[in-house]
C-alpha cells in the first residue's frame, strides 16, 4: 500500500496553511494537505483536514484550485501558465488517456464515485498511477464509504473527501474494515507468492 504520509512535496507552494494542533507535521505546508481540523472534510495522512483547494469558479482564485476536465481542455494554455497549484476533477467515466503529458501539471487529481456501486474510478486510479506514473495527490470524492476505503487505498488513492458520518467516525477511530492480506500483484503490492515465502520464513 502506498504510504499516505509519503505525500508528494511540490515545489513553489503558495499555500499559507500550516498544520495546527501542536502535532508533529511537515515543516512546510504541502499543497492539498490542509490544516488538521476535526471538522474538515479531507482525510489525508491520518487526520481530517480542512480543504486548501478551491473549486474553480469565475474568476479563478489565486490559490490552489481544482478544475473540471472540460475547463482544462477549454483553458489549457491559460491554466498551464498559472503559478498556483492546479487540481483536476474527473467524473466517473471521463477519459484520462488523452491528457497524457498534461497530468504532470496537476498536484491533485480528484476522481468521483457517484454511487456506491460505480467502480470506474478504481480503474482510472490504476491507470493514473501505473500507466501515467502520476505521483501527485489522488483524492476520492463522492460516495466515499468505510467499506470502500481499503480498496481505494490499494489502487492508489491517498486522500478522501468524506462527509458520511459513520465513515468519518470509523476513520477517526481507526475502524476501517480491511483484510490486510491481498492476492493481487501490482506495482504497489508484492505478489502474494513472494509474501507467502516471507510469511513461511518468519513463522519457521
Amino acid at each position, binding site marked *: 500500500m502506498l504510504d499516505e504520509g509519503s505525500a508528494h512535496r511540490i515545489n513553489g507552494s503558495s499555500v499559507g496553511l500550516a498544520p495546527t494542533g501542536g502535532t508533529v507535521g511537515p515543516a512546510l505546508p504541502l499543497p492539498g494537505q490542509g490544516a488538521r481540523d476535526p471538522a474538515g472534510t479531507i482525510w489525508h495522512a491520518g487526520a481530517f483536514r480542512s480543504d486548501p483547494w478551491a473549486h474553480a469558479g469565475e474568476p479563478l482564485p489565486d490559490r490552489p484550485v481544482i478544475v473540471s476536465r472540460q475547463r482544462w481542455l477549454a483553458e489549457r494554455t491559460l491554466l498551464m501558465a498559472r503559478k498556483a497549484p492546479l487540481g483536476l476533477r474527473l467524473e466517473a467515466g471521463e477519459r484520462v488517456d488523452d491528457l497524457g503529458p498534461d497530468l504532470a501539471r496537476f498536484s491533485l487529481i480528484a476522481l468521483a464515485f457517484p454511487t456506491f456501486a460505480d*467502480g*470506474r474510478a478504481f480503474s482510472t486510479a490504476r491507470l493514473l498511477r501505473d500507466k501515467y506514473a502520476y505521483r501527485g495527490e489522488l483524492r476520492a470524492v463522492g460516495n466515499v464509504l468505510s467499506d470502500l476505503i481499503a480498496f481505494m487505498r490499494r489502487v492508489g488513492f491517498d486522500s478522501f473527501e468524506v462527509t458520511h458520518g459513520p465513515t468519518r467516525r470509523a476513520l477517526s477511530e481507526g475502524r476501517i474494515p480491511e483484510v490486510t492480506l491481498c*492476492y493481487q500483484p501490482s506495482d504497489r*503490492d508484492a505478489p502474494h*507468492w513472494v509474501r507467502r515465502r516471507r510469511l513461511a520464513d518468519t513463522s519457521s
Partner: protein
Amino acid sequence: MYRYDEFDREFVRQRVAQFRDQVARRLAGELTEDEFKPLRLMNGVYLQLHAYMLRIAVPYGTLNSRQMRKLAHIARTYDRGTGHFTTRQNLQFNWPKLADIPDILGELASVEMHAIQTSGNCIRNVTADHFAGATAEEVADPRPYAEIIRQWSSLHPEFSFLPRKFKVAVTAASRDRAAIRVHDIGLELKRLATGSLGFAVFVGGGQGRTPIIAKCIRDELPEADLLSYLEAVLRIYNLHGRRDNKFKARIKILVHEIGAAAFSAQVEEEWQRIRDSALRLPEHEIGRIRAYFAPPPFEHRPSKASLRPPERNFERWVTRNTHTHKEPGYAIVTISLKPIGGVPGDASAEQMEAIADLAQQYSFDEVRVSHEQNLVLPHVRIEDLRRVHARLQAVGLGEANAGLVTDIIACPGLDYCALANARSIPIAQRISARLAARQDAIGDLKIKISGCINACGHHHVGHIGILGVEKRGEEHYQLLLGGSGAEDAALATIAGPGFGPDGIVDAVAKVVDTYLLLRASANETFLAAYGRLGPAPFKEALYAR
C-alpha cells in the same frame, strides 16, 4: 486439491471477523438494511422470499470429505437439514438465521471454505470441468489455473464494483462440460503452437435476458500471461461496460455493441502494457499451485472386474453414471441428485455424510459438484463400483439417469427466490415423474428450467428449455427447443405460445413423443434429430388442432 497455507487462512479469518462485526452492527440497529445490503451480498448472504439465503463457494466444484461433512453439519445445525447444489457448482442454504451466519462462516473457515464473492457485481466463484483431473479428454488438469484465478480475483480492489457480475469458467477438454461459451470469460486450456500450455480465450458469452455465445478473442495465450490478460479484459470492461441499464451491463453487451474485434484490440493494447508487470506468473508459482493438484496415487492395474453383471439396476447405472477415467482400472462416477420426482440439486445432511464416506473410502477423498447439479466421485476403482452403487442406493442416490431426461436442471424458482416469476422445482418434479418410465428409451436429453428471465436454470442452452414467466398474475411457461451449452453451443429458440403449469408438462411429453416417432434410429439423439428435422414437426405436434 488446494490446501490453505497461513496466508490464505489469515485472509479468510480477517474476512469472517469483519463480517461478524458488520452483522453485530446490523442486529444492534446501527446499520440499516440498505446500508447492510451491499456488505452481506459481498459475503454471499441474500434476503429471499422467506428467509436469508447463504451461498457458499465451492471453488471449481472441488470438495474433500471433511468439507462435505462440514456442509452436512451446517445443514443439520443451522438449516433444516438440507443443502442445495447450484448450477454454479456452489451450495446454498435456504434457512439460516442472520445471527448464526458469522458462526457458519467460522465453521466454513475451519475447513478452508468461505462465501466470498458468491454474489455482488464482482468476479464470482470460478467454475471448471467437473471431470477435471480424471477425464482422459483433457490436455492437463485445468484446476490449478482456476485456483490461480480464484486467488487473483479474491477481494480484487479494482474489480469489486464492476458494472455487473462476472463469471469465469475453465475447461481443458474438447468436450465442454463447463459451458465456457456462455460465460463472461471462458478459458480453454490447450497446447499452443509452441507446444507449451496456454489458453484460448472466449469473451462475452452469457444467458439472462440477452443470451449470447462468447467470441474467441485470443486463440493462443501463454499460461504466464493469464493474469495480465484477464486484468486487461476486466479493466476495459470496468471502464467501458454500461452502467446506465442493469440489463445491459454484462460484458456480453459491451462486446456486442463495439464488436469483438474492437474489444479485442483495446484489450490487446492494455495487455501489452502490463504483460511484463508483476502480474506475469512465474513458473515456480504455477508449479506450486499445480503440485496441490497432483494425481492421487493410482494403482496401475487394469481391472478384470466384470462390468456387465446380470443385475439390471447396476448395469443401467454403470452405463449412465460412469465415465471413462484417464487411468485404466478407474471410473468417474456421477452421483445423481435427481431422484425421480425429487428436488434437483438437493442433498440431505445424511446423504452428504454418506457421500463424504464414499469419497474418503473410494475416491481419494475427492467429490466434485457439477453445474448440472449432480455430484461426482472422480476416481473410483472399477472393482469398487458395485459397492459404491449399493451405498448410494441405500441413501436414495442410486438413480441411473445422468444425462437423461429426468436429470433436469432447475433454479430454486418461486419456491424460494425473490426474483422468480414462477416455480421451477414442481415442474421439474412432474416432468421427471411423467417421463421416468421411458427415460432409457429416450436417451440423452437435457431439460433446463428457469423461474425467471435471469436464466439461472440455463433454459437458453437446454435441449429443451423452460422459462417461467408471469402472465396476468399466473405462472406461465415458455418452451424453448434446440439449445446446447457444450462445445456445440447454441441458443434454444422459443417454440411458440407458452403454457400453464399443467400444459407445460404435457408439452414436454409431446415434444418427446414427436422425437421418438421421428428419430432416424435409437442412436440419433434428441438434439441431433432436432437439428435434422428443424422445429416444424415439433410445433405441429404442440400447436396443431
